[in-house]
């Protein structure tokens, strides 16, 4: 890890969190921990509660029970911008940048909002070069190809010098050739910035490549935790993704 640019990460501790909307329980009884510089993969079928979990940890939604701690600070229930200032930064599934602004202005905004000056941009130069964003430096971000917009949004999150990154499907919508950029991005965040990463993703190849530990959510419950090679071969995990035997029988009866 580069001592010069390291941000001194903090451990994210999630303790028995649950979220309900009225009578609908989105997730419950979920606990895990991410240490500085560590990476935890979070997988699960659509509707498992992954994005809602990011929304609650980052402060966008309130938890129904449990708590989320970044170091010694409780972060759930705090405002999103206060948590971002503490270093708990999230990304979005869709492209996220300020339309009408150039690549440079988007990155400048991210630095400005996190209280840094433009000189901090230099530490991101290798990433910006790798993603091809320097070539489009003075172009309007909204007319860039989807893949570039996506990497711009992710780099903006990294520009804030996070201590803990919550990545919400960073590879979604990217072409196969572009997905290696996510590998590089995550590696850079961990090694050069020194922050922990929670990676919510559907791309199992990416998960297998990057993660040493994953958790699996299904129906709002944590059903498995461990190394990807073990977890992804478990029957309950395969059932969660492909539909269980009971579901198949039921489906056969209906048809």
């Amino acid at each position, binding site marked *: 890890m580069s001592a010069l640019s390291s941000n001194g990460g903090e451990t994210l501790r999630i303790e028995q969190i649950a979220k309900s909307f009225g009578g609908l329980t989105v997730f419950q009884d979920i606990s895990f921990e991410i240490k500085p510089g560590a990476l935890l993969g979070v997988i699960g079928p659509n509707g498992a509660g992954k994005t809602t979990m990011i929304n609650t940890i980052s402060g*966008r939604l309130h938890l129904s029970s449990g708590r989320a701690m970044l170091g010694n600070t409780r972060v759930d229930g705090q405002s999103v*911008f206060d948590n*971002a200032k503490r270093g708990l930064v999230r990304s979005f599934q869709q492209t996220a940048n*300020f339309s009408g602004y*150039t690549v*440079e202005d988007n990155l400048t*905004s991210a630095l400005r909002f*996190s209280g840094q000056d433009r000189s901090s941009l230099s530490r991101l130069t290798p990433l910006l070069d790798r993603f091809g964003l*320097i070539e489009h430096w003075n172009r*309007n971000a909204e007319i860039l190809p989807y893949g570039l917009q996506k990497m711009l949004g992710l780099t903006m999150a990294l520009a804030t010098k996070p201590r803990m990154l919550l990545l919400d499907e960073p590879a979604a919508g990217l072409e196969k050739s572009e997905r290696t950029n996510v590998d590089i991005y995550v590696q850079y965040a961990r090694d050069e910035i020194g922050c922990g990463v929670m990676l919510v993703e559907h791309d199992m190849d990416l998960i297998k490549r990057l993660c040493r530990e994953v958790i699996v959510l299904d129906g709002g419950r944590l059903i498995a935790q461990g190394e990807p090679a073990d977890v992804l071969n478990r029957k309950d995990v395969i059932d969660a993704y492909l539909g269980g035997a009971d579901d198949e029988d039921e489906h056969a009866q209906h048809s």
Partner: protein
Amino acid sequence: MKELPASERAPFFGTYEKVTLGLLLLAFAVPFLTRNPQILSQSNLILIAATAALGVYIMLRMDLMSFAVPAFMAVGGYTVAMLGIRSGVTDVFALAAAAFLVSALCAVPLGWMILRLKGVYFVLVTFVLTEICQLLLFEAGPLTGGSNGLVGMPSVTVFGYEMYDNSHVLMITAGLAFVGFLIAAVLTRALRYEFAAIEKNDVLAESLGLACWKYKALAFSVAAGVSGLAGFALVNMLLTAHPTSFSPLSSVNYITYAIVGGKGSILGTLIGAAILVSATEFFALRGELSPGLYGLLIIVMTLVAPGGIMGLAENFFRRFGKRDSKALETKVAVQSGSGHS
């Protein structure tokens, strides 16, 4: 590995701000060029309308359409009238400071209540706020003079010199308009990144660490203060503070000035007010057809120039300019502190 391109440092004020402030300085020359009361009166009305429309312009920077301008104009106007009539304060600097500060301070608790709203909800609540203000002006007789208003305001003074005739009144209005535009220009330029981020994607802005509510509250308060200056100018012109001068429906006019002029730049507010106030006066000569003609003009302008007059002008120069159109477009957006109008 490629190096990051060198950053072009944009001047604090862009072209639009410089041109706008320059035009306002020219307004000081009008009383020296003519004694024609109609021109003086017309110039007065344009400057007051433009200053009032600034309250809309500032809030539109964050995609919030405010109908509260007449309410804060009333606060500024009545503050000045009370100080003049009841306390004998006539110094223009003291009165301007009072009009700005009292209006701005009134906006703080109101902003705390309503700035969590967006879109039509914000529009609705600010409109109701103006209705309530109008009601209070009529009902709080001992304080506001009720339906009689506050009459008999003394002429204001500048360094002890009494400003009593038409040309003097225009000088005061031009001064207040200049201060209002200067404050709005400094605010929207200094915080252009923050305002643009809130306008374009406030969820993303917060996730990057921007406390959006602080900037909204500051802008709402400053917009109220600038509206208070417009209220001062109006009361000073009429020498009376009356509830009907601050009718809730007049907020539609101020919004129209900002949008027809082009909400993307401060110059649009001045140009929109100049054209539409002049059009109102011109159409008034056609008697009962006046409102219809005015409405028709707004429909035509909205259809022809959805980005306002300034948007139309920018498109014209872009089409005939030689520079890279897309780069220019984005640079214009950043320099004017706006997105696309």
